[in-house]
């Protein structure tokens, strides 16, 4: 699978997440914070979010089945969950949290149950989509890094090859050919050196 195809795939997946309303501009802010010092920032934050939110969802579920329902505690858990959801740009999850809060504030247990199902559903969907997205992104980055390494290796071999000509010419006692003199001539460099070497060999 070539690099361009992978990149297109990654870009399309990301665009789809925004177009379908799973993510909002806050996710772009996370990407803006990713740099050489924090190369995996987005993935780390998203992983942290899903670890934390799994715990919070469990707490909410337990609070919902307790008798009587402690709406203040529910409100606290949902407050934290909504805060982190909005901070990573999880738009649909955030919206369901807002609906849940309304029922919770009203002390409406049935409403809380219903919207909590939606919260969990949106959370699970987002998790799956982001896992797939990061897998594709990692694949693209691996190919990208491999290509860079390959190009670097080829350039290194080329330089070594050029400098080996200098050694051969020196060995034959030829007038010193400075490679720097030919640097601007680009492709003609190799041809000129070969010609000088071959001529000297014939003279010998």
């Amino acid at each position, binding site marked *: 699978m070539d690099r361009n195809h992978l990149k297109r795939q990654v870009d399309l997946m990301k665009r789809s997440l925004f177009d379908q309303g799973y993510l909002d501009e806050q996710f772009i802010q996370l990407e*803006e914070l*990713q740099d050489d010092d924090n190369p995996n920032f987005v993935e780390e934050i998203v992983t942290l979010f899903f670890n934390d939110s799994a715990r919070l969802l469990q707490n909410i579920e337990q609070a919902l089945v307790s008798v009587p329902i402690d709406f203040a505690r529910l409100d606290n858990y949902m*407050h934290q969950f*909504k*805060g*982190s959801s909005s901070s990573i740009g999880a738009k649909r999850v955030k919206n369901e949290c807002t609906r849940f809060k309304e029922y919770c504030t009203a002390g409406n247990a049935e409403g809380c149950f219903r919207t909590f199902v939606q919260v969990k559903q949106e959370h699970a969907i987002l998790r799956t989509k982001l896992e797939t997205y990061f897998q594709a992104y990692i694949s693209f980055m691996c190919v990208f890094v491999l290509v860079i390494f390959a190009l670097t290796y080829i350039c290194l071999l080329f330089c070594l090859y050029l400098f080996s000509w200098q050694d051969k010419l020196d060995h034959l006692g030829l007038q010193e050919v400075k490679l720097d003199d030919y640097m601007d001539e680009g492709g003609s460099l190799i041809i000129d050196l070969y010609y000088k070497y071959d001529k000297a060999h014939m003279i010998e």
Partner: protein
Amino acid sequence: MGAAVDHVTAMGMSGGSAEGNDKSQGQRFSCKSKLTALVVDNGGVCRAIQTALLRSYGVDTEAVETGEAAVELIASGATFSLIIIEMLLPFMNGPETAKQIRAMGSQSKILGITAFFDERDQQEFLAAGADDFIEKPLSPEIVIPIIRELDN
């Protein structure tokens, strides 16, 4: 990685321009003076994001999980240009934390932050000594004008 979009330009509250914000020109806004910030939030995700955002603008930032930890830090002599406090903290809530920080004589800019905006919470926070109160997420549109103000 990086979205193929322009860096979000911040419109300051005074409507000022956001020169130096455009990442596509290779420059990100950064504070001129040595600014420090403290993030007080019991949520790990929010703490991490807010800290990273402030640091990206050159603000030396620390983070703690509780109001008590924040009060203790300031009582030990630490000073901060900006303190961002979450509304619902365990044990000592945001407004109470702000009150205690002000009672210690702190002149820091205090920003109350919450997941669900509520006017009563806003009034409580402002009465406790906060300078402003916003709903999450903390974004460049909010942070940059504050940093510019503190920078000047």
